[in-house]
């Protein structure tokens, strides 16, 4: 597993375990006692996928592909359905996905590596940043956090606590300050202090608020004044319990600031986060991390194979 040792892998398994048993049980129930993949199996499979927030459209795509393969490759044994589903689901996530994220290896050609964190309200951006900063610092990186959520009451205070826990520096201004100015000043400081990684927290915003989306664009623009290729990553944080609206979120945030990756939080609940299949497939955006708890080491790199394995283990 190599760099994965830096993480507490068992927690990932733990978090995903609920996802696995829930879906797996249902699929198994669906195929129990059947000798071939009939309409009923497909129908029950559909239900399982829908129940996992995969969404009608993506479910239909998956089921169509499975139907096709059953036809062409003459799968007759329903036990093979899990394998098939596994395969096709992984293909959805593979589409445009990168390899697993390794926090200890950031591109050599630029310093700092600027990461901007965006998302709607309440998905867990600030917490995720704390965890992310902790991961980078753990692998020996010099990390700086920019507190550009100048809107929400006590956002600075909350982030500051996380920065302390992670043992990294944070740059902030008063509530109500221009977030772009915070980002700009932070990047200046990061450049001056040779920081390896700079993580920018932004205020939660609904993707439908035009002005707030413009504000994000502005943050990106001012960063580019100092560093033309910044931000190097723009990560959209999604709450695993969010339903199909996550697709709209991905769409609008991508249109505004060009999302390069997803972070799926709160996967330690009973929600399955299946909507990332649709997003990854539709927009070619890889899932980079999953959040599986409230502790500082509860952010894990997204391993699509493990994720799909966990969903549809044979």
């Amino acid at each position, binding site marked *: 597993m190599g760099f994965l040792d830096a993480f507490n892998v068992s927690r990932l398994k733990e978090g995903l375990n609920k996802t696995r048993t829930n879906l797996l049980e249902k699929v198994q129930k669906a195929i129990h006692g059947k000798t071939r993949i009939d309409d009923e199996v497909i129908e029950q499979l559909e239900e399982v996928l829908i129940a996992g927030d995969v969404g009608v459209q993506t479910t239909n795509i998956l089921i169509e592909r499975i139907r096709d393969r059953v036809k062409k490759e003459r799968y007759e044994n329903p036990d093979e359905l899990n394998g098939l589903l596994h395969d096709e689901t992984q293909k959805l996530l593979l589409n445009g996905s990168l390899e697993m994220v390794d926090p200890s290896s950031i591109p050599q050609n630029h310093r700092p590596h600027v990461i901007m964190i965006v998302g709607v309200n309440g998905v867990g951006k600030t917490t995720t940043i704390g965890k992310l900063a902790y991961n980078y610092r753990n692998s020996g990186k010099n990390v700086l956090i920019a507190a550009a959520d100048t809107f929400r009451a*006590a956002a600075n205070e909350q982030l500051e606590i996380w920065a302390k826990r992670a043992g990294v520096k944070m740059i902030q201004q008063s509530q109500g300050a221009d977030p772009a100015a915070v980002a700009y000043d932070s990047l200046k400081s990061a450049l001056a202090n040779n920081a390896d990684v700079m993580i920018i927290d932004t205020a939660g915003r609904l993707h439908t608020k035009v002005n707030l989306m413009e504000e994000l664009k502005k943050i990106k623009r001012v960063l580019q004044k100092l560093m033309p290729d910044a931000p190097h990553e723009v990560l959209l944080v999604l709450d695993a319990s969010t339903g199909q609206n996550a697709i709209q979120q991905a769409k609008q945030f991508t249109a505004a600031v060009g999302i390069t990756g997803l972070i799926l939080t709160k996967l330690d609940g009973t929600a399955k986060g299946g*909507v990332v299949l649709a997003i990854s497939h539709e927009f070619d955006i890889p899932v980079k991390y999953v959040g599986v708890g409230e502790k500082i080491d509860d952010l894990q790199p997204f391993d699509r194979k493990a994720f799909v394995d966990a969903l549809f283990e044979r």
Partner: protein
Amino acid sequence: MFEDLSQKLESVFKKLRGQGKITEANVAESLREVRRVLLDADVNYKVVKQFIDDVQKRSIGQEVLQSITPGQLIIKIIYDELVTLMGKTNAEMTDSPIPPTVIMVAGLQGSGKTTFCAKLAHYLKNKGRYPVLVAADIHRPAAIDQLEMLGNQIQVPVVTDRTRRATDIAAESIDQARKGARDVVIIDTAGRLHIDEEMMQEIENIKTKVNPHEILFVVDSMTGQDAVNTAKAFLERLDYDGVVLTKLDGDTRGGAALSIRAVVNKPIKFVGVGEKLDALEVFHPDRMATRILGMGDIVTLVEKAQAQFDEQKALRLEEKLRKAQFTFEDFLDQLREIKKMGSLQQLLGMIPGIKRLPINAQVDDTALIRVEAIIQSMTKEERQKPHIINGSRRRRIAYGSGTSIQEVNKVLKQFSDMQKMMKKFSKGKMPRMFEGMHFSA
């Protein structure tokens, strides 16, 4: 994605057109589309299944009114069913005869509890109450600071204690409220996962200790299929009295509202519609139904057209049209009927398929207001007999309506065009009236 849904429904409706009764055969296809609409809106799949079955049972055998298509009737049945399912508009809260009334707020992380608490305090304060906020979220970093700042913004005191357990803070706050002559206590609790036994035990303990008069469960309106699980789990532990839907100012269709109503028989009391502290509204089941259906615009149009356009008036008008007696008086009536239905832009948006028309469907409502003003500046006689409106009358009308002679001319011209057009299709039915109405300022 959603737009092609309404297109699909439209094509389904097309096939149904001209069939007098809803039968099992013609309802099936519509319901398949409706099922998809509901699933896309994140209504729980089990709830959808049950719901569709119910609607099917209700629909079959229903007579289709002449004015609407069977498809539209099914949508109307679905809409009515949805509204019923989601209960009444109900923001009533239990009020303790001995103050203070204690309200406890619970929910998952990030659902918007803290913001809601502040909004509720603001709402109650505006109603003449004296609320106090209690920061019982000792887990999330800076949650206490956040509530303090929000309390400060709305000038509502906040009880905090950074050294004690949540249960004790909550319990003690009630004494403090009594001493401070506060009549409502709003307790903000930490966000917790319904499967986190330790945390669920904590909130159960708070409940036992303070015995709240009202417990509100806060849920993010963007929640997907899992909404039923969390709503049920919190109900089992807390038996809450009402639900609050947050973040409805986005574009989520909010199917979670229906899912929750279906599995827990508790009213949805408030909805959060923005980040500002006054962005709290009482729940309206009809608006929610429209939203979940997505293409509920059709419902609204059907409903509104049915309600506003009373048959008799329409008949009288048709009679007039046939005899070509349509006057500015009738025109004014028409304008007002349309205004009752909402803005023209909204109205156009409600017409299925309008988005695919090549014409630019941008309509300016102010144009209508000006037209109305112009007609109102006419004398009775002028309205009956527009041909008598000469130059000096035009000047007077322009002056009286605050418009220009050019605008008055334009309206007169459009009116006479309209009269001509109406003669042409005077055999046709009322709704076609709208086709002749093209206005620009």
